[in-house]
């Protein structure tokens, strides 16, 4: 993982969140407090502004800094949750370098911290419903020895299916849970932002390797 790729990832994440800011807020207005797009955008904008600094850091320091910036700048529940995700990944880096074979362990580390922070699990209409299937898929693809192109394609697909699955779920966590049955029929904004970020990160790898 080199500095250039890291910078590209940050750029892609910032761009996808910025492009979908209104969409995320619209999703959040259906079942939440209508600030998800705005909040996340502020966080990724701050990271983007720090990108030349972050990209010079070691992978674990870069992930930590990313997580910390999200915690401090995003606010609401998504700040602490996304912050925990990136900081959780940082904790599970091996030898302070990111290689494909270690990526699932890092993702599971991030997911574990999100679960702890949110006191939540899969199936409760949250970002976990995107992240967990994506991590599982990545693990499977690596085990099968798939090529990068297939890995990326299938991980995105699994994340999409996971995100879409939140539509029929009843929210059990966060503000949306106050709506009970009325939360059914809407995609969870956190599941959607996780999908967008997975796409952004995969896209930056795709571009790099072609």
């Amino acid at each position, binding site marked *: 993982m080199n500095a250039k790729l890291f910078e590209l990832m940050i750029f892609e994440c910032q761009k996808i969140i910025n492009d979908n800011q209104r969409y995320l807020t619209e999703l959040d207005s259906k079942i939440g*407090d209508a*600030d998800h797009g705005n*909040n996340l955008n*502020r966080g990724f904008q701050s990271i983007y502004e720090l990108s030349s600094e972050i990209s010079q850091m070691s992978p674990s320091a870069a992930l930590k800094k990313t997580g910390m910036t999200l*915690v*401090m*700048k995003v*606010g*609401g*529940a998504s*700040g*602490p*949750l996304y*912050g*925990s995700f990136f900081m959780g990944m940082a904790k599970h880096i091996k030898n302070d370098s990111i290689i494909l074979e270690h990526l699932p362990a890092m993702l599971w580390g991030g997911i574990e911290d999100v679960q702890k*922070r*949110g006191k939540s699990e899969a199936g409760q209409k949250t970002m976990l419903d995107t992240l967990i299937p994506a991590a599982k898929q990545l693990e499977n693809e690596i085990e099968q020895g798939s090529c990068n192109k297939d890995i990326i394609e299938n991980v995105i697909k699994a994340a999409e299916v996971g995100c879409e699955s939140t539509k029929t779920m009843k929210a059990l*966590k*966060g*503000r949306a849970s106050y709506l009970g049955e009325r939360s059914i029929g809407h995609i969870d904004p956190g599941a959607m932002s996780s999908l967008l970020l997975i796409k952004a990160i995969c896209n930056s790898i795709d571009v790099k390797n072609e």
Partner: protein
Amino acid sequence: MTHIKKDKVAIVIISHSPDVASGAAEMVKQMSGQSVPVKAVGGDFEGGLGTNVEAIHRAYEEVYCDEGVLVIYDLGSAEMSAETAREFLDQEKQEKIIISHAPLVEGAVLAGAVSAGGGTLEEVKSAAERKTDTEEILHSSEGNIQSVKIRHKIGLHARPAVRFTEMAKGFKAEIGIKLENQSKWVDAKSIVRVMSLKARNGQILNLKAEGKDANQALNALIEFVQNSFGEEQSEIE
């Protein structure tokens, strides 16, 4: 024997709304005076509705004292922000900051009252998190009833009320308490109810209990009241 405390337990109130947080803090100060450090944190980065980890972290640093800090919040994501902000502090400080699920306004006011009375962090927490009482004993005419006269110059005030309820909670029996001249029994295990009796020196308390250890419970509680709540004081009556 009396432990003299330098500080009172501090209270941090976190709300998505700056107005709610500062309003609740104002109510605490009205009840508890200036002796209890209270800090209100509300709103997001632009002053709108939301929570802000940085501001919460600053509030912790500002009010932190060795007696501890009780944190009360309004909604789910405020709890997450409260927990995240706590993790930025030294381990030693983290242990003395308790995040409570108490109702925001009532919990904060009760916490303030007990803190002002010199309550420990645990006592302040249990005061804030009072349970609603549904004990049937309170409505039944059954049960063993005993009376005791309060012998403490400032009555059944915050700190002994906390100890009294903690002691009552140690028994399985359902326990009711009231002033002799009142008809309505209240739950002796509820700090809110016991404090709301405003029982003063010289007044007679009625206690009743039902359950296996009812007699033991009554004996222990009566003795506690008779002994001026176990507090040393120079001028009894």
